[in-house]
Structures are given as C-alpha cells and as structure tokens.
C-alpha cells in the first residue's frame, strides 16, 4: 500500500468510524477532534486489521505519542518496515 493509499484509508476510518469533520493531515487529534485515549486504543485495533498482524505491547505503547494523521501514517509505515526486515 502506498503512503497516499494508507493516508486515504486512515482518513476514511477517522471520518466514518470516529465522526471527524474535514480532518487535516496536521490537525491536533485531541484538540481539534476530541480524540482521546479510548479512541487511540480503538484505532490500534483497526490498524491491526489493516496490517493483518497483532501489535505487541511495546508497539502499542509507541503509538501513544501520536498527535496528527501524519503521525499515524508514519507509525504504520514504521511498523511495516520493522516487520519486513
């Protein structure tokens, strides 16, 4: 999956499942869209489905620094790359 495709997929999830309105790639998820820790855990479940792998505890903890949509896409690419090594 290209970065653009991944980005579109995340935006679709955030719009349809998390009811984001017009999300921007560098919006602050918490301040601009009320995205909280519960949402973060829910999103990780969806990322597992996208990647088709179960995330480790360590990988999930790294997601807690995510602040923007760009961060989410970076995070997924990092996971993919580390798994493909």
């Amino acid at each position, binding site marked *: 999956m290209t970065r653009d495709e991944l980005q579109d997929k995340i935006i679709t999830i955030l719009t349809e499942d*998390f009811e984001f309105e017009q999300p921007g790639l560098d919006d602050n998820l918490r301040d601009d869209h009320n995205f909280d820790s519960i949402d973060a855990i*829910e999103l990780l*479940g969806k990322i597992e*489905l996208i990647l088709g792998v179960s995330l480790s505890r360590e990988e999930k903890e790294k997601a807690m620094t995510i602040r923007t949509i760009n961060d989410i896409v970076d995070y997924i690419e990092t996971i993919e790359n580390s798994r493909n090594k």
Partner: protein
Amino acid sequence: MKRRVVITASSAITPIGYDKNEIIHSLRQGKSGVAPLRDDGLLTKHIHSHVFGTVDYPIDYGFKRHFTKTMGPVAFYACQVAKDVLESSGLEEDFITSGRLGVAFGSTHGSPTVQRDIYKTFFNDLDSKFSSIGAVDYLRSMVHTTAVNITRMFGITGRIIASSTACTTSSQSIGFGYEMIKYGMQDAMICGGADEYDTTTVAVFDNLLACSVNFNETPECTPRPFDTKRDGLVVGEGGGAVLLEEYESAKKRGANILGEIIGFSCNNNGGDLILPNLDGITATLKLALKDAEIQPGDVDFISAHATATKMGDVIEAQAIDAVYGDGPLVTGLKSYMGHTMGTCGVIELILTMYMMEQNFIAPTLNLENVDERCSMLRHTRELTGTTTRIAAIQNFAFGGVNTCLLLKNGRDLNA
C-alpha cells in the same frame, strides 16, 4: 435537617409510548405495549414465552460519537431520558456542573447486548490474532454504565448512586436520591433506570416457570395481574428519569412542580432470594407511611408491583389488605407494558404522576376475573375519573428487596 423533595421534570421511554400524551392515550384507551418476542438468533427458539414489552418505535437520539462510544443500548435509553429532564427543567449549566446535582441511576445488569458480544469472542475465539474486544466494551457493558454515561454527557460532578437490584433498581434510585436531598447531601438528583431488549432475562424467568406462556398468539392479553388466568410475567424494556429538587430552591427558581416524594422505604426479606415474603412486604408498606408521617387512609391510589405471577400477586394483595384494607384503588400498570425490570419503578411512578395530573386512574388491563385470593382489594376495573392526593408505588425484587415510594400530587405546590 429534613428538607422537602419535589419532582420538577420527568421522561419515560415505554412500550406504550415515549411522548407523555401518547402514554396517557394508551392508558385511557387500554392499549397494550406487549408484542411478539423478537428473534435474537441465539436464545429465542429455546424460550417458551414468546411475548415481550417492546419499544418498537424509532427514537431520534442525535448523540455524537464522542458520547456514544462508551454507550451500550441501555445507556442510550438512560441518556435520552436524562437529556429530556434536564432540557425541560430549565436548570442552568452552572448548577448542572456545580456538584450540587447528583445522579442515581441503574439497570439490571448493564448492557447484556455488549456482554454477549464479548462472550462470543471468548467462546468462538474470533479474530484471535487481533484485539477483538473493543477498548470500551467494559465501559459500555458495566453495571453502572447508565449513571456514568449520564454524568459524562452532561458534565455532572455530584454524587453517583448506581443501584442494581433487579426490579427495585429505579425505585431505589428515586428513594436514595430523595434521601440525598432530604438530608442535605445534594440539592438535586437525576433518578431513574433503564433496561434494554434482552432475551437472557426472559430465559432466566422462563426457566423458573415465571414467564407467561399461554398468550403467545395474543400478546396483548398478557400479563394479567390479579386475574384467575394469569400465568406469569412478561419481560419488557424501557427507560425513565425524574429530576428531584429541594422544594424551596425549586419554588424560588419558579420550577413547575409535578409532584412531591413524601416517603420512601426499603428493606429486605432476610431469607429466600426468590419467594415473595408477606412479612417483608407488609413491613415495607408500613415503613413508607411512617417515613411520610401519614396514615393509610391518606393514600388514594396504589400502583402495585403486580407482575402477574401466581404467588407474587397473592402475597402483595395480602400485604395491601393488611395495611390499607379496601380503601385505595389498586392498579397493576405492568398489564400495559410488561415488566420493564430495572426501570419499572420509575416508569410506574411517572405514569402515576401523569394520571394524577389528568385526574384519572387507569384500570388493570386483562383483569377479567379477579382471583378470589386477591379479591379483598379495591381493584381499578374501569377507567376512573378521580383526584388522587397521595399514591404509593410498590416494587419488589429478586434478592428479597422491597421498596415503596409515596408520591403527593404536585398541583397544590405550584400555588
């Protein structure tokens, strides 16, 4: 310090309607809300009772995902009726979030729909590679989910009471909320209960031979409180909330006073967890009168618990007879909508308040031939135009829990 406690807003989602006028219409017309049991793809085919007190109309919730993500179906009912009472109360935002407003709200067992999904994952090993159990499934299913979703949605910071005592859940909520205000711990409380569509509850009562099974083809003919042909209860769903306020402050802010809670009692039978207990129930009725400092002759109407089980109705009739004789009119309101479980107390109190306001008492539906063991009471056999000054709302639960609320007509309090 003892303060007076009044009701200044109410809302009920019931099998016979949501809108107040629709509910009153159903009561006046003898319209039943009992319908065929819906297929849940799991238990339905094993259950002998095929009837259910059903909320079968759409409700426009309009809640944002920010709130709904922690809500199971039961919390939708709870938050909707809480929203209604807050909107109609006219309370200021500053007060709602001040800590002086609390919540007493419960359900029989949280959200069985969500719990069922969790167990499906356990038993079927679904998606074992991934996080199949949602991050919020506990918040959506836990036993106090109704109370805390209400606080979350409206920013309420006062006391929380999340009673969960089966059929006395919401009558306890109202009673404990009343005591919070009466003794000065809170100035207002949102009180009530909710229960969602759930076949596991039907299955439990069905197994105990306590559910109605003889009217599966004619759901509107059951339940039949006090009738010779009664054959058990009908489980139902719904939600209800009342706003209780301290009388002086409600009056000062010009609130419309719908009624006054003048007494509450709650006790336990101290023994069997299922069988109704004459001594325990009789004591409850007397304790409520004592709390209200009134005499039995002051009570004009009794909303009986009257689930239409064979022994429950007889024991309750004996208790009413022992305390009140044949003075007050007695109606079993479950005859209209089945037994809405954790929410029955608040719904029956709200329906009683509606009837008080409109100067009528609805008859017990399906009461064609009174069981001679219950015949000593003054049953409401037809729509009766009358002024009710004080009513008793009686509820009893598995676990041997009994409650009685005494409600005074609010008409004179607005003067």
